[in-house]
């Protein structure tokens, strides 16, 4: 009997050892998975696992608290950090609060000790996914090489040109010297102009033909060049900060109005001040591929932000020490004698940005679009009410062409009260109103959109 019970005990021991050996990792696996879910739902908005963010990094946090001798207090901290801080029993709590600019953490009264353990276990066992090697840097290097080669070719060409002319001059001199040595009489040298005159005299018809061709080609060239004065199609000036519209407005779907937020309130669409950039870039210091860090550093310098400190640099009075403001190069230049208001066109007229600016989601830096490009967009964007135009963009011809073609909804039920008001006024002059509505539509031009003083005053 005794022997049996010992045997039984042995078997139980064996089983429990095996169970412990194999089962523990399974329990741990569940912990990490549950922790991941909890982390995403509760913590991820302020914490990163392996990096300092709005709050401290979570990897190793449990160890730090344990080292401080407050391993048990971390649970209280997560559930209600304010209560723990005011209780004064935790030094670690006060330290974290001070380190993160006295920003209190959100309270999580619903999380149990087990939940918190799961989250911290997930953080401690987290391994970042391995990414592919950098491809973008190679192409960039290639581009700079190309530019360098072009410059060297140019320098080489200029050097060769000098050598050629020098050799020609030397050859001529040598010929004279040789002739003088032979005792030949050197006649008066004919100048190049004399030679040319003689040639024209001999082949006058051919010369006339060349002259006429050159004259007309020159005139045609002059006309096309004059026609480009004041036309800024496809103009894309360089900028201090290489901002990428295709990334921000395209991939990340940030609305145009987020940055150009005065477009519905002012004549100007507005360039964002650096504080608008900093709404995201106080947290985002580089893209996930590691690019853009250099450009964002320029922004931080202008805004007076220290990314290592995670805060703005302030002087003794607590004012932010700002750097030199970013000077953006203006792409859309309208002459001073033209008045244009974004508010009137966007808010009242309901014109989509695309009608004048094209598909900005495909641009990098700000750029003046072309009429041809915008015409190509009309078919695919039927919901935006775009119309096709013929004149070059940002010219007066283009403005008045649109004012002539663009139909507006005027009536008692017009979507914009501005046009309801116009309807009210026009009903006082039925003859005029009838005249306007004769062709079944109301255009901007019919409401005075072609009056000189509408834009020039």
């Amino acid at each position, binding site marked *: 009997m005794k022997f049996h019970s010992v045997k039984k005990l042995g078997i139980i021991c064996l089983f429990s050892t095996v169970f412990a050996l194999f089962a523990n990792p399974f329990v741990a696996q569940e912990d990490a998975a549950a922790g991941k879910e909890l982390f995403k739902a509760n913590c991820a908005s302020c914490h990163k696992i392996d990096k300092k963010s709005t709050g401290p990094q979570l990897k190793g946090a449990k160890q730090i608290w344990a080292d401080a001798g407050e391993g048990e207090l971390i649970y209280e901290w997560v559930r209600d950090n304010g209560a723990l801080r005011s209780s004064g029993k935790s030094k670690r709590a006060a330290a974290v609060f001070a380190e993160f600019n006295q920003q209190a953490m*959100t309270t999580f009264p619903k999380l149990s000790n087990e939940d918190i353990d799961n989250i911290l276990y997930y953080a401690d066992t987290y391994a970042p996914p391995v990414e592919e090697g950098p491809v973008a840097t190679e192409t960039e290097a290639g581009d700079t090489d190309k530019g360098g080669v072009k410059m060297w070719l140019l320098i080489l*060409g200029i050097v060769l040109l000098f050598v050629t002319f020098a050799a020609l001059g030397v050859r001529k001199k040598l010929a004279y010297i040789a002739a003088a040595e032979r005792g030949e009489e050197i006649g008066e040298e004919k100048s190049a102009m004399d030679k040319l005159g003689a040639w024209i005299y001999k082949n006058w018809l051919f010369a006339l033909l060349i002259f006429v061709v050159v004259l007309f080609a020159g005139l045609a060239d002059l006309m096309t060049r004059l026609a480009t004065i004041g036309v800024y199609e496809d103009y894309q000036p360089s900028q201090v900060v290489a901002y990428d519209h295709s990334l921000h407005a395209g991939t990340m779907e940030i609305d145009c109005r987020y940055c150009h937020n005065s477009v519905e309130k002012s004549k100007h669409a507005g360039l964002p001040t650096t504080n608008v950039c900093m709404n995201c870039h106080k947290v985002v210091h580089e893209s996930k591929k590691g690019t853009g860090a250099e450009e964002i550093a320029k922004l931080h310098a202008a805004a007076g932000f220290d990314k290592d400190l995670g805060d703005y640099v302030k002087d003794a009075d607590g004012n932010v020490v700002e750097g030199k403001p970013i000077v953006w190069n203006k792409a859309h230049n309208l002459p001073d004698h033209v008045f244009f208001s974004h508010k009137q066109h966007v808010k009242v007229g309901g014109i989509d940005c695309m009608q004048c600016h094209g598909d900005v989601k495909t641009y990098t830096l700000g750029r003046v679009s072309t009429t041809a490009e915008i015409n190509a967009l009309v078919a695919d964007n039927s919901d935006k009410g775009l119309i096709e135009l013929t004149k070059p963009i940002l010219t007066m011809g283009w403005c008045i062409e649109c004012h002539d073609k663009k139909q507006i909804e005027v009536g008692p039920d017009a979507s914009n009260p501005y046009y309801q008001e116009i309807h009210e006024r026009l009903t006082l002059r039925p003859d005029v109103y009838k005249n306007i509505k004769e062709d079944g539509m109301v255009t901007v031009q019919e409401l005075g959109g072609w009056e000189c003083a509408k834009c020039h005053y």
Partner: protein
Amino acid sequence: MKLNFKNISLFAGASILMMSCSRNPDSPGYEYMPDMYRSQAVEAYVDYGLIKDVEHEDLKNTMSARKPAMGSIPFNADPEMAEVMMPYSFTNTEDGYNASKGNAIPMKYVSNEETAIAYAEEGKVLFGYFCSHCHGKTGKGDGAVITYGEYNAPMPYDGGYKDRTLGQIFHVITYGKGAMGPHGSQLNKDERWKVALHVRTLQYGNLMYSELMTEVDSLNAMKDSLKVMSPLMIDTNVIELPLDGSLNHESTEEAHH
């Protein structure tokens, strides 16, 4: 024309010279009558540094965006609107955030259910411009910025942020919180209330008008009982009431010195 060394080298030289004359990509090009094109006065985003038609390089673009003077209030003929636009009294601190819980939405926005829903609809449009790229169209915290950049995702409105009141949402939009930046410069106070109403719609699936009114009424009643006329009257920056009589203590101490 003979195809000799001289001619070929001349041609090559000429083409190199022509190639080297390329347009400066930063120059917009020629313009007619610069005196009519270029404003002598400094316009927004345009500064040619002109004094009597002469350009001064060192004057160009020396002005940057300026903040309005402290305490400036946008003019508004509508008294209700003017009150909404009054300077915001809650500070950008944890205490200010907690106190903003007591900031009731002006009655203008919630006078009746239809009005409130209409304002929330306006807020939805603004939410699309200013919030949805991070918080997501339905407020789940799954906007394109978050999914692309794998950045810290904001908690869903109907989850972790469900207990936030309108006053707190207003405070967060104004000053930011955590990873979110302050949006007070992009949305004025009127627009912030509208967005807050839409966020409430996302928190509960609908505006929950009757519950909202109970909240607003109790907050307003609390204010009356405290004999505080409106949150506009308190500016914690200016007035710091010594609750523990420390002011007297200090003054007596000073008298001793």
